[in-house]
């Protein structure tokens, strides 16, 4: 474009220069008001505005296919060294939600496994030294809450189930509970159905209930 056009500072020229962006809705409020005011009195600018709308519509039609380009770029990605992840700090990495939930569930199951397979911490002791601490009461259930669960929510859930915390939390966040024997099954079902609870299951024999 070698043609030189002198743009004057009149309202008409200013409007002419702003019309494409008035058309595509990107002007600020002051500019819109300025254009509207001039359009009301200027047939030439109204016609130019209509031309712009037509041009913009014609530009909008071009079918494209990304498949070929993506296939080419994938080949290029495979050829380049996979240095991308190495410079990302471990804690900054995004973990997909499914893996987070799955990981928590696995941790919870392991925690429950530890509680249920460890030898009893309350053997039948026939002798107590005076300084011996009283044996902790045995629990009859284990519960694991999601890490983000608030203390208030946990307290409410445990109270609602009639549970008393007798152990934990351990490193995996598992609590040992003492539930009333006659309502244990129902309380565990209630706890297990709560969105904040990852695991709720019985431990020990029926006798310990």
């Amino acid at each position: 474009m070698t043609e030189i056009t002198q743009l004057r500072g009149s309202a008409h020229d200013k409007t002419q220069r702003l019309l494409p962006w008035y058309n595509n809705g990107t002007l600020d409020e002051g500019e819109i008001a300025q254009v509207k005011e001039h359009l009301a009195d200027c047939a030439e600018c109204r016609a130019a505005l209509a031309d712009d709308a037509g041009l913009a519509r014609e530009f909008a039609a071009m079918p494209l296919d990304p498949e070929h380009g993506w296939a080419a770029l994938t080949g290029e990605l495979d050829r380049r060294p996979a240095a991308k992840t190495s410079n990302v700090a471990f804690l900054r990495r995004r973990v997909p939600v499914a893996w987070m939930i799955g990981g928590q569930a696995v941790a919870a199951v392991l925690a429950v496994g530890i509680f249920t397979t460890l030898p009893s911490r309350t053997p039948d002791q026939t002798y107590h030294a005076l300084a011996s601490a009283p044996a902790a009461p045995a629990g009859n259930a284990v519960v694991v809450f999601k890490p983000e669960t608030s203390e208030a929510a946990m307290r409410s859930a445990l109270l609602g189930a009639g549970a008393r915390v007798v152990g934990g939390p351990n490193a995996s966040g598992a609590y040992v509970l003492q539930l009333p024997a006659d309502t244990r099954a129902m309380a565990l079902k209630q706890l297990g159905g709560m969105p904040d609870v990852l695991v709720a299951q019985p431990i020990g024999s029926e006798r310990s209930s």
Partner: protein
Amino acid sequence: MNLATRSLNIRAMIAVAVTSERNVSKRSAGVGQAAREELRLLESIRAGDRQAFEQLYRLYHPRLTRFLMNLVRRPQLVEEVLNDTLMVVWERSESFNGASKLSTWIFAIGYRKAMKALRRQQDPIEDPEADRRPSPMPNPEQELSLSRNHVLLRKAMNELSADHRAVVDLTYFHEMGYREIADILNCPVDTVKTRMFHARRHLRKRMEGELADWI
């Protein structure tokens, strides 16, 4: 006032009314949501998530192809520049500092890559395969499949410089504001307005007699 002029004026007034309506509703909440989703994808890309990169690639492919097609006008070159552009996004995502919209940043990379490719094309390098390679311009058969308006518009666009084509495309197709376009092209806003003014005048001149049918 003759019938044709009156008819044109009525159409112009309808266009004004429609435009006013668009101005109110156009920049809706959906735009912000899409921008947030793109930023979320960029975060995942920074962590090396190739699926997120593919999603971003597919989001930007139509827009960038369109933009680059108007700039470099050779399908083979478009694909090369487009992939070069998105490879920068993949490899240098940390350099996006959030000072502009993500789309502005990506388009600016695309523009620089395209201009570099054009400069390379203009260098006189002997190409023994040139005669056997298909022409980048549409053949008569291809042109027949386009509407008359598209053919005229394409020819008129081809007569503009790459910088003018970029402004026209970013305004009409990508619906960007002149400030954002100035950021992408790294030039003053007045330059954008002036380029657009000249480009529109050229297009209108070339499309004379056809424009009325579009409106």
